[in-house]
């Protein structure tokens, strides 16, 4: 089925035909400052500065932490969308509870309080705005929310009622402006036992608010540590290491001929030996880095006519770089997990390629590795990957135009049974000395998914874009057939979604 072109909803590569906009299901948060006009009247500049500071210090980071996207900020409010209703509500609670803390020391008339409404709906997403009934309903719900409160729609409630362990007070079906059907609305009470008690507590003074502030800070830290051990940011405990103490793991100096075009494959006698990354070092030392191979720059014809996604074939110039000799292994990944730089601990043999990683997970790894090793590690660009995979050839496979056993791990690639790779480097290396460039494990690259090469860069850089809901996968996996093993084969997949055949390898600019 090489002819299928899939337009992922939400993808922005070119205007969709027929004037139809990409739609998607999203949890929408609408927030708005209560009595903004009054405060602007009292102190225009001061209020503006405070609002901007809250947006920068609290609202934007909270949205990012909960895997959402800030669609826009208005003068006195904001709109954000989330894939997950749970994350949307958690984010709203975090924002409100942080504001309680910020407001605690202020006199009542100068407190900045947000109303927040959350709804789940099918929306039209554009780069800087979002449209649809779902957004309008979220706005109406926000409008009836009390300052400092989070109100959610029935659709959100159904999704989160057993997940976010908090109280919900049903406010019944509300008729909202310009929406035909009444909307069921719930008030979120972060404290499950608080149902019905909140009003009587309202008069309790500063001490109570301060107590909540302290508790929420503690709870926030606890939550951060427990629920999201993999978030990068400031907690990626970088081992304090002397940069000069890592000669063992520097990139392999072996220069490789890259321009020699139709070189025959050189079966390496050492192909059966297991890869030997440096032994784990004490915690104070820099982490063992993946074994790297330096690739000389050059120019090549990228793409093929075998599949519409690989057209048009175009000339690309590659700068010198180095790339992982093998895909990143379970052992290498778990160094990152142990240092809290990566989101989960991988299971499997040490030398197996790490799998079930999303593009976002792979980014966490390279960011952690770059910090820990103090080298600019990154994912390879799509052009770099194909250049490296071709090993200087323009044939269908790097070893020629016909399938041969022992060259790659795939469903119909030859004698070796197609099983999940037990270790990296089980097949022959290509002309550049790289293993598993085709078959074995799918590999993420830096680029956004575009369904053809129409408009692709020619300088070997990553082709990114404003909206990047899916990224490019290369190599094919043990589950795919031999068409996927071709060095020019490409596919796209949702950026934040894990799948069992997806892994990656790292690259380094020289």
């Amino acid at each position, binding site marked *: 089925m090489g002819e299928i072109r899939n337009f992922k*909803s939400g993808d922005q590569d070119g205007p969709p035909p027929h004037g139809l906009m990409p739609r998607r299901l999203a949890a929408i948060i609408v927030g708005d400052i209560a009595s903004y006009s009054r405060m602007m009247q009292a102190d225009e500049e001061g209020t503006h500065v405070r609002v901007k500071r809250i947006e920068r210090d609290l609202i934007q980071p909270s949205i990012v932490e909960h895997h959402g996207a800030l669609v826009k900020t208005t003068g006195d409010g904001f709109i954000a969308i989330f894939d997950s209703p749970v994350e949307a509500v958690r984010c709203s609670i975090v924002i409100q509870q942080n504001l309680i803390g910020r407001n605690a020391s202020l006199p009542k008339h100068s407190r900045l309080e947000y109303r927040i409404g959350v709804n789940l709906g099918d929306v039209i997403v554009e780069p800087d705005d979002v449209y649809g009934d779902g957004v309008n309903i979220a706005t109406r719900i926000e409008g009836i929310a009390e300052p400092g409160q989070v109100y959610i729609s029935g659709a959100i409630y159904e999704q989160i009622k057993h997940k976010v362990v908090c109280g919900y007070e049903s406010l019944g079906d509300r008729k909202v402006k310009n929406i035909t059907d009444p909307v069921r609305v719930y008030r979120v009470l972060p404290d499950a036992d608080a149902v019905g008690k909140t009003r009587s507590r309202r008069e309790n003074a500063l001490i109570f608010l301060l107590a909540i502030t302290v508790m929420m800070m503690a709870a926030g830290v606890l939550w951060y540590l427990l629920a999201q051990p993999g978030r990068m940011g400031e907690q990626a405990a970088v081992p304090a290491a002397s940069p000069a103490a890592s000669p063992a793991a520097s990139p392999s100096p072996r220069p490789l001929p890259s321009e020699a075009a139709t070189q025959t494959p050189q079966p390496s006698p050492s192909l059966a030996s297991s890869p030997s990354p440096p032994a784990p070092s004490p915690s104070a030392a820099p982490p063992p880095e993946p074994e790297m191979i330096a690739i000389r720059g050059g120019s090549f014809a990228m793409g093929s006519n075998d599949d519409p996604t690989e057209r048009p074939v175009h000339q690309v110039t590659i700068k010198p770089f180095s790339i992982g000799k093998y895909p990143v292994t379970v052992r290498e990944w778990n160094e990152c997990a142990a240092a809290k730089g990566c989101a989960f601990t991988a299971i499997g043999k040490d030398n197996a390629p790490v799998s079930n990683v999303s593009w976002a997970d792979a980014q966490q790894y390279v960011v952690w590795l770059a910090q820990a090793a103090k080298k600019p590690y990154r994912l390879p660009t799509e052009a770099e990957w194909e250049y490296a995979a071709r090993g200087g050839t323009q044939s269908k496979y790097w070893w020629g135009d016909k399938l041969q056993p022992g060259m790659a791990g795939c469903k119909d690639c030859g004698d070796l049974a197609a099983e999940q790779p037990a270790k990296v480097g089980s097949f022959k290396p290509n002309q550049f000395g790289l293993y598993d460039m085709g078959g074995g494990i799918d590999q993420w690259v830096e680029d956004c998914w575009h369904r053809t090469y129409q408009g692709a860069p020619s300088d070997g850089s990553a082709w990114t874009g404003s909206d990047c809901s899916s990224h490019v996968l290369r190599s094919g996996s043990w589950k795919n057939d031999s068409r996927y093993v071709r060095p020019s084969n490409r596919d796209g997949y949702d950026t934040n979604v894990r799948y069992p055949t997806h892994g990656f390898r790292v690259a380094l600019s020289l």
Partner: protein
Amino acid sequence: MRIISCVALAAAIALHSGAANSQGKSAPKDAKLYFITPHDGQKVRGGFWVRFGLRNMGVTHAGDEYQNAGHHHLLVDVNEPIDSKEPIPQDKSHLHFGAGQTETLLELPPGTHTLQLVLGDAKHYPFEPPVVSDKITVRVRPPASARK
């Protein structure tokens, strides 16, 4: 204290659900997966929108272990039976919608094609019993510009 325990509980549940094995997750008996558009036998030209309908279950992000919720997969010209012991394959005929998408713009070469929806759980396994749509046929006409 209540707030802390609330948050800690939420965190514990989040951690726990991540570790749970999702294979063979059960689906409600009345769950129904269907195509809103196109309909069986429809003739289309060029790119066309495929919209996914689901009743009595929810659509969620892949990786989210919610009860009675999953994400869509669109199978194009797939003849192999669905293997409930394996994750739904990922290739150019098994399109994944793990971000919770409920529609897609498809462009297929001219000719007759089959389409079928399969709902996957957090780890892309089919449910038990599988939640699948009827397999429909679409006839893609050559683009108008190609006929002159």
